[in-house]
């Protein structure tokens, strides 16, 4: 129905992505504003049991599309099934997380359905029932307010930019009958880094190192991140030096993170680095150079040797946790 919100939840390796709950919570608020229903959609292979969790975030209905060919994400299979569901349900907005999957799927859906796409959004608000969406452009140097001129409008949400909140929904589970032709593409393998690592874009705490690390030993940062339940990132210089993999890079040509706390260690603070972390709630800078540009854009700064400071912070966090 034209005031309904459809939220696509992403279920990978036995868990829903955190941003999927954020999308559902945002969808719940929008459905309430518009007087519509929140319809959750889950694609995968044997995901019905897991799908029940989505009721706790306010889903009125939960559509479950199961098929062996939906086990791994492929643009063509996921686009086919999701587009069909959108056409059948005719929601006014479709929400999903701006993950590697969400950005890929939303773009393909936008073209398939001729539906406008606003990607990597950081705030949504209704003014006279009309939705205004804020999204960063130019690497976050500009925040643009955009409006969508036709429905359905597809919106992806930057992870950690929206709160998730439990809400009661009827959570009625419905099986969606999947009919798929043999896909042209196939997923031959997935290679994951060490298990149990917290994904940088979803972490509540990010501890990043730059040129000031002086080498590939990031163990002091890893210990602090682990103590705070966070992830380790890196500046472009540290990646270019080969100290950290490209997948750890935070910045305009790397990952964009929005944690509660971002701790920049030995990072001077190039404009491209800010683009990747400026939507963090609190930014802490640790640098031995009191003139480093990072101090002009951080909330809190400590001037000093990071190899003394970071272990001391780790110790203090441990004390706080035990108190």
């Amino acid at each position: 129905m034209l005031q309904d919100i459809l939220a696509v939840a992403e279920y990978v390796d036995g868990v829903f992505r955190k941003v999927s709950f954020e999308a559902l919570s945002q969808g719940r608020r929008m459905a309430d504003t518009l007087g519509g229903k929140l319809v959750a959609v889950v694609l995968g292979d044997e995901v019905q049991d897991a799908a029940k969790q989505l009721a706790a975030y306010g889903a009125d209905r939960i559509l479950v599309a199961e098929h062996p060919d939906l086990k791994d994400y492929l643009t063509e299979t996921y686009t086919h099934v999701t587009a069909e569901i959108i056409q059948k349900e005719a929601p006014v907005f479709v929400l999903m997380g701006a993950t590697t999957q969400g950005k890929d799927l939303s773009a393909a859906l936008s073209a398939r359905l001729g539906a406008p796409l606003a990607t990597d959004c950081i705030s949504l608000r209704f003014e006279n029932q009309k939705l205004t969406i804020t999204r960063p452009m130019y690497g976050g140097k500009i925040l643009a307010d955009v409006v969508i001129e036709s429905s359905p409008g597809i919106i992806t949400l930057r992870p950690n930019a929206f709160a998730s909140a439990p809400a009661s929904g009827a959570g009625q589970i419905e099986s969606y009958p999947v009919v798929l032709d043999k896909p042209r593409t196939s997923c031959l393998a997935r290679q994951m880094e060490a298990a149990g690592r917290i994904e940088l874009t979803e972490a509540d705490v990010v501890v990043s190192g730059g040129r000031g690390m002086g080498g590939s030993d990031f163990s002091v940062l890893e210990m602090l991140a682990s103590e705070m339940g966070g992830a380790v990132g890196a500046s472009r210089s540290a990646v270019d030096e080969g100290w950290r993999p490209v997948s750890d890079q935070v910045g305009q040509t790397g990952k964009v993170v929005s944690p509660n706390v971002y701790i920049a260690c030995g990072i001077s603070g190039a404009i491209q680095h800010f683009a990747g972390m400026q939507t963090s709630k609190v930014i802490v800078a640790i640098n031995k150079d009191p003139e480093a540009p990072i101090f002009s854009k951080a909330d809190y700064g400590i001037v000093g040797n990071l190899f003394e400071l970071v272990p001391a912070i780790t110790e203090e966090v441990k004390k706080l946790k035990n108190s």
Partner: protein
Amino acid sequence: MDIIVLLKQVPSTESIVQIAEDGRSVKTDDVNWVINPYDEFAVEEALRIREKQGGTVTLVSVGTAKAVEAIRTALAMGADKGILVNDPAIASCDGLGIARILSTLIQPLPYDLIIAGQRAVDDENFLVGAAVAEFLNIPFMSLVIKQEINEGKIQCHRTIEGGTALIESPLPALFTTQRGLNEPRYASLPGVMKAKKKPLEIKTLADLGLEAPTPLLRVVAMKLPEKRKAAKIIDAATPHAKAAELVRILHEEAKVI
């Protein structure tokens, strides 16, 4: 192997971006224009594939007259020819409109592979590559850090959260680039000289039989992000005292841990 690269000219990532008088676009006068960094990876990868397998590399772009510079730069890197769609009507286009123009342009051309940047660093839409693939009805793979082509098939290592997925697709296909795919070469001086003589066609929407697409997404206002005040510098006698004070502030004042 005939390869098409989607190319966009954008302000360099070092550029200071200012909002124009109308409040919903950016000033373009003092900007340093470059090839979108992700498109540079695409040009480089196309050249490497051509070096191995032979064939041609064709650049296609939608932009203003100034975008000729970006195309010439990529020609100087080694691409064979360029086509620019330059039409006043494109100013109001959204990403879907641009993709519609590009796919109409590409449709009659011979191609085995299309490579695009994962996104342009100005609009940050992540849309055009996927949409061109969709309009041409060819397989699409995004965020690729490594690829191999064998016997009419391409295998792409696609970045996913915490790892990579290996996707295989028949050709023709379209993939988008991720940092880590390669290190783009610089244009050599002989390359720059040669580029001046390489074919560069300029077309209008009418040449493609298209009318200006109606934008479905509209920017109504732009603002600068709220500036953070300069950091509160935490000072104390020892590193331990500084650390203790930081953790106290994060816990008690900022309430984030």
